[in-house]
């Protein structure tokens, strides 16, 4: 087996293991905490009978290990359980919301990734001069500003004062693509701003790192043209770190989505999770937590695998 394939398979297996461990953690986080889950859900005034009924329904009388495996096998077969608050099938309710969230994240990524790489390159080209300083200043600002401030500023000026975009991002299946894009313009804008800072700074660091390496200097001293240096020497080595940067920030986007969806009342996964945390609807929270964790782990996994595949040193085994 070639070393690359072996590394990739190892990394995939590790990812599956990590996801499994994460599912245990999510389960433990919601079920084996101090206090009784049933009374936490129903509150102080619950009658003994109601508590007993809920315990039976949640299967709380079974030992935790049994409950975990019941839950896990259900999840593996696509059965995420039934919501406690409205008795609806979670997988069904979630599929619409997941596709809405992915729609939002997709457009944010499509805009943010090329823009961040471009601005990162500009910062490298003019290192230490004013474009570079603007980039690092913007990075400091976006790291420190909470997502909801960006959201409400955008809403206040672009939706309320100037009425360019709608303030509430409501989409449904019957809308055309253009209408949908108009509806999600503000949340996409905010998400782009949220990830842009990190992505620019990390791209800049990754490319600077490559440009300052010994082999680029050697290539310069050999008298190669700068285009050849970038294309043949710098670019192949910069792919892995840049893809890594992109994937880490896409994973970050998945979390940023939670707040942005709440700000713009967007019918996606984040809003779904937050609503059901407040209702203490544990099956929904577990399912959402697992989906978010899976996406997050998956994106990090892709980042690792791409850096393995793109590493020129692994292509020529000793």
């Amino acid at each position: 087996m070639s070393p690359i394939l072996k590394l990739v398979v190892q990394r995939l297996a590790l990812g599956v293991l990590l996801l499994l461990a994460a599912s245990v953690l999510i389960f433990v986080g919601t079920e084996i905490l101090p206090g009784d889950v049933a009374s936490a859900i129903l509150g102080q005034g619950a009658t003994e009978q109601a508590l007993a009924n809920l315990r039976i329904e949640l299967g709380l009388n079974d030992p935790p290990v049994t409950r975990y495996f019941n839950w896990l096998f259900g999840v593996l077969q696509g059965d995420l359980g039934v919501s406690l608050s409205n008795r609806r099938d979670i997988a069904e309710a979630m599929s619409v919301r997941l596709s809405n969230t992915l729609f939002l994240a997709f457009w944010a990524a499509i805009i943010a990734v090329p823009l961040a790489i471009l601005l990162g390159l500009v910062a490298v080209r003019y290192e230490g001069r004013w474009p570079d300083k603007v980039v690092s200043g913007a990075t400091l600002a976006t790291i420190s500003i909470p997502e909801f401030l960006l959201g409400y500023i955008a809403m206040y000026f672009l939706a309320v004062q100037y009425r360019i975009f709608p303030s509430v991002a409501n989409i449904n299946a019957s809308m055309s693509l253009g209408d949908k894009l108009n509806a999600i313009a503000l949340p996409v804008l905010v998400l782009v701003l949220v990830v842009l800072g990190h992505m620019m700074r990390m791209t800049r660091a990754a490319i600077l790192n490559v440009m300052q390496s010994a082999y680029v200097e050697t290539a310069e001293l050999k008298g190669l043209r700068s285009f050849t240096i970038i294309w043949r020497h710098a670019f192949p080595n910069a792919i892995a770190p840049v893809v890594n940067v992109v994937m880490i920030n896409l994973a970050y986007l998945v979390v940023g989505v939670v707040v942005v969806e709440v700000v713009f009342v967007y019918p996606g996964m984040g809003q779904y999770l937050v609503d059901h945390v407040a209702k203490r609807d544990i099956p929904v929270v577990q399912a959402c937590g697992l989906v978010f964790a899976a996406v997050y782990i998956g994106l990090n996994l892709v980042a690792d695998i791409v850096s393995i595949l793109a590493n020129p040193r692994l292509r020529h085994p000793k």
Partner: protein
Amino acid sequence: MRMPLSAMIGLFFTALYFLAAIFADFIAPYGMAEIVGGVWDPISREHWLGTDNIGRDLLTRMIYGGQTTIFVATMATLLSFSLGSVLGFTAAVIGGWVDQALSRFVDLLMSIPSLIFALVVLSVMPVTVLVLVLVMGILDSTRVFRLSRAVAVDITVMDYVEAARLRGEGNVWIIFREILPNALSPLVAEMGLRFIFAILFISTLSFLGLGVQPPLADWGGIVRENREGIVYGIPAALVPAFAIATLAISVNLVADWVLTRTTSLKGGRGG
């Protein structure tokens, strides 16, 4: 070395917010939950920032809100530092399976985004200030753990640690008397960043309605209370959000300065 302007600005605002939080009871013009005007009254001489969604003085809410937000964030940062650094040093000093077990567990905790995991846990826990501090502190200690372990691994191979070992000192002595003083400066610089993270984290949770519970004021909660006003062109919700951003940027500027200062003392980068 003179203090750069950016650090001075940062220090000024950080101090301002902290002093306002500490002396909230003396400087707040009205009571925290006292209804003193109409709904969303504009800025006036009586109400410097106007009133909020049920007619409370917004400046008063902001001062008390800052108190809660800064208190929770400070406590969570202290917890994450004590927990993370002690465990990180322990992992580096003892090594072997203790290090493996702790490091793999931290990897696992970090494989789930903190906000998501916090939401999962808060869905069953009673949402009190103590629980919030514990959840935030424990989740954030993973990052402190990684940093302090990495720093301590470099220190444990030093001759003076070896000398202490040969002298027969125990692990507790080595952790607190040999490693801690030498690992302090990178940890202090990191503390600023963790504090900002804690401020943003608690504000986000409160904004989502799952953090500090009303009638207690906190900045994220004030954003939440006043957010409906935005649609009618009332910017009350922007005030606390703006306070969060300025506090975060100020602490960042100070932390940057501390970082360059401590590294330059050792002859490192910065000058």
